[in-house]
């Protein structure tokens, strides 16, 4: 009882005593003293009797009229009401009754009695206690049990079997002498009164006869050494809920065996009903978690069946929300507040409006006693903000908020102090009393906790069930079988410890040492169990679909939104993550741009000209690597960190696509911000002039693709270490196969290709992104836009004139020479067909440049002189046209120079190093003679693609798709986008989990 409640009580007692206006004070004082001594220790009695005296004497000079005293009592009771909770109010009221009873006994007149109880009724009204409760309590205190109206709330305990009690709720307690009366005031709160002469103890205090005592969840009445009365035993007598309204779990001869092991769960049956708290007890390795897993459907049963409300436990039933599972690890988001943790979880599993959700959250926070810390962050287990017990309660609240009918809790008290553990278990017990069935897996419960259970399942090593039933009977059962009486254990061990000691009692060797062999092996205990406990019959329960627990989930979009908000706030609340995620890109952009800003000598000393910055290709390459790396790092932990959430949410049948979508969208937003900041900073520092949109979208898409890759590996792997080992394995091929670090032609012959980018590189997103950025920089800058058309034509003519036609002439010469010498085998694929094909291609290309149509060669392909003359004429034409184009370009340069400062535009927009790449200026052999054609390797950006599946040499500005030429920038972005779509489909289809599942099965 709180100090304020007791002070209020003394105050009221003094007023109540004063109403008698008796002198001297000693009579009232003696009564109060006697009353206090019955309830409290000596120090408390001494302190409060003095307070009583002070109040009493104070009133002697204050009140003349009785009306004034009543007014004072009313005021005091009203003020006191604000300071007391319901339980304290009842305490106050009952004590006033008791005191009045004493007064009545001492100064017994009918008028006095009426006067006393009228005064208490007045107080009761001020304390907001209902008239019905007032009457019931009064009758209970005055022993007028027959006048108690609510007989359902009244229970008689007796040691004798008395026939006259048959119409009353009663229980037989072995060894109890006299009667014990129990009044159920609330579901977690009973009143007990003993009428008899024996000495019994309630919560370590003598249970005095004819006094009312409070009996809470953890209270215990010791009858004798063999018998104690626990709250749940009394409470069970009051539970008269119809079976049809109760959740019922029936485990029918269930068993489970691990492969290649004798461990598992041996066959047994039991029934659990809502309103019960079932404890699964046993030492480590006895199969407690396995039992929970098979009851929840996490593990498939080897034999038997589990029924919930008469329905077999199927995946559908499991995911209907009827089952709740609270794993041992706390499933909380460390960076969110207690409230937000609950809020997002509730939004995910309950299809309710925001107001209802908030109300439910506040209720559960109140019930679990964590309302005061609702706005505190959770903190990590290392850097705690809330206590371990509060963390556990929040973990529990997360599951209970959706009100499942059956809740399984794995080791809820592990790592908690004894007081925290008890507090938590009392919370759980209270929740079970709300017509819920709780299974709690617990290792070593204290006595207080042990006796909270309505039923315990005790498991022995190897998964042998050796006891199911009331906890209070377990010790007696095991003792009766083992016939071991060890007074030592009784003195120093808790009841549960005694049970485990008996179970594991070792054989004593001849030398008196304990051996590793047990007196009774687990198998033997199991035999006893089977012999002593009859199998329960399958209960006949008509399943009710509308039982609480069959929750309706919010739709996929609401789930997506809730996931999204949860993810966003948890990331946002993590200062380190937020800072690093948002600053890493701008920081890297600054560092890279600054370091890559090459200056060159000029008249002022050194100047920066974008055109002369030879680091731009390297910068673009690094930009891609940064996008990939940051994208991977941002997402690689995302799913693996959520694994414990996913395990729990599996019971809810939440929409996986909503979950993945929220991750993808949030990461996409992060990627957008990161790449925008990177692009802006790099443009400002390096003065890049190109299509900013293409620059950004390329990095953005590549970053999103990396996010998806990160999510994939995060879903695939179980540990962060494995993920971080895998990241370089993903990243390094992206670096190597872009064509920057190692030229494609220098790769291993097995993968290298001169005609096209190697297939293995085509699989690398970085290769498409790099090509896009280089072509974008080369083509989409203010300088090049003037010349790109003319240069393209120049390039094609130049290749014809410089390379293609002379090379064909050379091949014709070689072919003829070989034929003349009869060396048929030489250059086998360079034959008439090859020459004819090339001839046609050249003629076709030449025709693109002239208004007139050049007649195709119709002479004999083997007529060397005629053929070469024809080719020379074509070459002559091409050269002339090339010269005309050069003159056109000169004229354009001249015109632009006169109207603009062409040199300045060039210096600020055109990059020579990029041009070197796009035009492959370091190339020594500008052609490749393939099986069917002579292909152009020089000026790749202007080359004409011919592979209909979009393959080309690196930096070709056009790709051929079927028969349509597509701009490379568009083509590449589409390729990356398709990779993203593929990634999304892979993740949406849970492929990583399927892969993992496949390997786990193997």
């Amino acid at each position, binding site marked *: 009882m709180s100090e304020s409640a007791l002070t209020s009580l003394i105050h009221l007692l003094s007023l109540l005593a004063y109403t008698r206006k008796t002198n001297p004070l000693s009579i009232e004082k003696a009564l109060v003293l006697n009353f206090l001594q019955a309830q409290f220790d000596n120090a408390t009695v001494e302190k409060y009797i003095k307070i009583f005296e002070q109040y009493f004497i104070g009133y002697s000079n204050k009140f003349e009229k009785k009306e004034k005293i009543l007014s004072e009592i009313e005021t005091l009771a009203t003020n006191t009401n604000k300071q007391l909770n319901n339980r304290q109010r009842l305490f106050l009221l009952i004590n006033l009754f008791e005191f009045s009873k004493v007064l009545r006994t001492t100064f017994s007149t009918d008028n006095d009695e009426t006067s006393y109880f009228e005064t208490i009724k007045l107080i009761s009204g001020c304390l907001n206690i209902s008239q019905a409760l007032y009457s019931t309590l009064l009758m209970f205190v005055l022993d007028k049990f027959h006048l108690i109206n609510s007989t359902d709330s009244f229970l008689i305990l007796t040691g004798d079997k008395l026939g006259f009690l048959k119409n009353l709720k009663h229980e037989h307690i072995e060894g109890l002498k006299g009667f014990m009366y129990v009044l159920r005031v609330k579901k977690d709160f009973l009143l007990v009164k003993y009428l008899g002469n024996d000495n019994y103890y309630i919560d370590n205090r003598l249970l005095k006869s004819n006094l009312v005592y409070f009996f809470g969840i953890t209270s215990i009445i010791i009858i004798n050494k063999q018998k104690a009365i626990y709250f749940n035993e009394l409470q069970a007598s009051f539970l008269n809920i119809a079976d049809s309204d109760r959740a019922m779990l029936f485990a029918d001869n269930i068993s489970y065996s691990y492969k290649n092991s004798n461990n598992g769960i041996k066959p047994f049956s039991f029934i659990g009903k809502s309103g019960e708290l079932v404890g699964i007890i046993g030492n480590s390795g006895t199969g407690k978690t396995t039992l929970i897993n098979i009851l929840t459907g996490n593990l498939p049963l080897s034999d038997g069946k589990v029924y919930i409300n008469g329905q077999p436990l199927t995946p559908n039933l499991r995911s209907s929300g009827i089952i709740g599972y609270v794993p041992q690890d706390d499933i909380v988001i460390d960076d969110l507040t207690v409230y937000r943790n609950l809020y997002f979880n509730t939004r995910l599993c309950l299809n309710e409006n925001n107001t209802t959700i908030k109300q439910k959250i506040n209720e559960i926070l109140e019930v679990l006693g964590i309302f005061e810390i609702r706005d505190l962050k959770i903190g990590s287990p290392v850097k705690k903000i809330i206590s371990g017990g509060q963390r556990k309660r929040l973990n529990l609240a997360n599951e209970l908020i959706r009100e499942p009918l059956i809740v399984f809790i794995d080791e809820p008290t592990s790592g908690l102090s004894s007081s925290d553990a008890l507090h938590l278990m009392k919370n759980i017990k209270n929740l079970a009393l709300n017509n819920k069935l709780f299974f709690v897996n617990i290792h070593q419960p204290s006595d207080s906790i042990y006796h909270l259970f309505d039923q315990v399942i005790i498991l022995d090593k190897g998964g042998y069930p050796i006891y199911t039933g009331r906890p209070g009977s377990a010790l007696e059962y095991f003792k009766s079988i083992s016939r071991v009486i060890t007074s030592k254990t009784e003195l120093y061990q808790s009841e549960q410890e005694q049970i485990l000691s008996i179970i594991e009692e070792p054989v004593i060797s001849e030398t008196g040492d304990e051996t590793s062999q047990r007196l009774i092996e687990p198998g033997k205990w199991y035999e006893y169990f089977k012999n002593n406990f009859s199998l329960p019959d399958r209960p006949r329960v008509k399943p009710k679909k509308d039982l609480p627990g069959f929750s309706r989930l919010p739709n996929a979009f609401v789930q997506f939104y809730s996931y999204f908000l949860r993810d966003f706030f948890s990331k946002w609340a993590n200062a380190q993550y937020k800072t690093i995620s948002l600053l890493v890109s701008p920081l890297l952009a600054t560092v890279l741009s600054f370091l890559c800003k090459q200056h060159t000598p000029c008249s002022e000393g050194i100047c920066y000209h974008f055109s002369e910055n030879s680091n731009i290709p390297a910068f673009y390459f690094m930009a891609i690597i940064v996008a990939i790396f940051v994208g991977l790092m941002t997402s690689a932990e995302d799913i693996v960190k959520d694994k414990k959430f996913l395990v729990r949410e599996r019971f809810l049948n939440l929409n996986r696509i909503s979950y993945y979508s929220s991750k993808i969208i949030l990461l996409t937003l992060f990627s957008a911000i990161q790449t925008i900041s990177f692009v802006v900073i790099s443009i400002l520092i390096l003065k890049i002039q190109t299509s900013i949109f293409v620059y950004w979208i390329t990095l953005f898409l590549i970053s999103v693709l990396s996010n998806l890759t990160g999510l994939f590996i995060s879903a695939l792997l179980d540990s962060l270490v494995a993920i971080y080992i895998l990241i370089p394995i993903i990243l390094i091929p992206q670096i190597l196969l872009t064509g920057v670090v190692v030229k494609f032609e220098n790769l291993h012959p097995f993968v290298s290709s001169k005609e096209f980018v190697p297939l293995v590189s085509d699989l690398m997103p970085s290769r498409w992104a790099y090509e896009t950025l280089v072509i974008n920089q080369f083509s989409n800058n203010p300088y090049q836009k003037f010349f790109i058309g003319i240069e393209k034509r*120049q390039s094609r003519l130049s290749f014809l004139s*410089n390379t293609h036609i002379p090379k064909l002439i050379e091949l014709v010469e070689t072919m003829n020479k070989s034929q003349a010498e009869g060396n048929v085998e030489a250059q086998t694929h360079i034959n008439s067909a090859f020459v004819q094909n090339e001839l046609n291609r050249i003629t076709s290309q030449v025709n693109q440049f002239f208004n007139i149509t050049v007649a195709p060669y119709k002479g004999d392909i083997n007529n060397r002189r005629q053929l070469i003359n024809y080719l020379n004429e074509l070459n*002559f034409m091409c050269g002339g046209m090339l010269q005309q184009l050069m003159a056109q370009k000169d004229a354009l340069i001249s015109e632009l120079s006169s109207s603009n400062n062409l040199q300045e535009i060039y210096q600020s927009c055109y990059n020579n190093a990029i041009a070197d790449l796009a035009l492959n200026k370091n190339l020594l052999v500008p052609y490749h003679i393939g099986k069917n054609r002579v292909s152009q390797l020089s000026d790749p950006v202007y080359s004409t693609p011919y592979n209909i599946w979009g393959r080309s040499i690196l930096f070709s500005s056009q790709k051929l798709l079927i028969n349509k030429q597509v701009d490379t920038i568009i083509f590449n972005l589409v390729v990356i986008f398709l990779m993203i779509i593929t990634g999304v489909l892979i993740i949406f289809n849970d492929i990583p989990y399927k892969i993992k599942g496949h390997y786990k099965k193997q």
Partner: protein
Amino acid sequence: MIRIFSHIAFFTVLIFVFPSCKQSPSGNEPVAHPALVADSGMAAGNNFIILSPSELMFDLQNIRLEKTPDLPEPLDVVPAYLASRKTAILLGFYVADLAFLVSQNKKHDAMKYLSSIKKLGDHLKISGIFTEDRLNSFQNNLENTDSLYMVIVETQYSLVNLLQTSNRNDILIVATWGGIVESLYILTTNINSNEEISATNELIENYQFMYTEFYNYCIQYSDNNLVKALFADIEQIHTIFSYGSLQKNNSQILTKQSGNNIYINQPENHQLSLEEITQLRAIVTKLRVKYLNE
């Protein structure tokens, strides 16, 4: 010594001029109505070698310079906006400088100039002459001046052949003109006295002769815009050389009777005066500055 310098210039000119001294096979309208099958000398791919450049360059070995000509810096980058006329002139300059550096045994520097020539060639779309084999030959023959000369000569033939067969004689003329200006600059930088004139008399006479041939070749393309733009400059030097040119017996100078080799009959001795050399130097220096800065 001066004589040797003059050989450098002469060599450079030879590279371009003599192979160029050939009539266009299709007349003055090579592109408008091309004949697809023409029995032309161009198509046959003949080149005319008047004097082996390696023979001329042989005398230039182990020379000590009295005045080092101020050569343009090697090019790291050829700006994309560089017009083809300037590119071709610079190509001529750098070829002359390459020959000069090779003769001076400054082969490391020569490679930088070779790199510049390749870049200019790419810009002019004549990359076909810089094949992998040829570039390797340059690299492999760095230690052997004679062989290096041969590689340079081969490159020269290839270049001329490429430009002629692809109907790009105007570029050939502009590049040749650049070579002449740079080589005359190198030559005249070291002729400052009558004694030095005497020592280079024979070479100057040969130069006069070659310039006359180049001039006549240019006249054939005088309608071409690129050539037309240079013609006033070409005329200036022609005026100085024309006196000596008139002294030659043209009919006896050139012959292609003996296959591909053309023999030069020594012209009558004519010595440019110191005043004329000075005037020539002033003109080429001015032209050179103009071309480099335009």
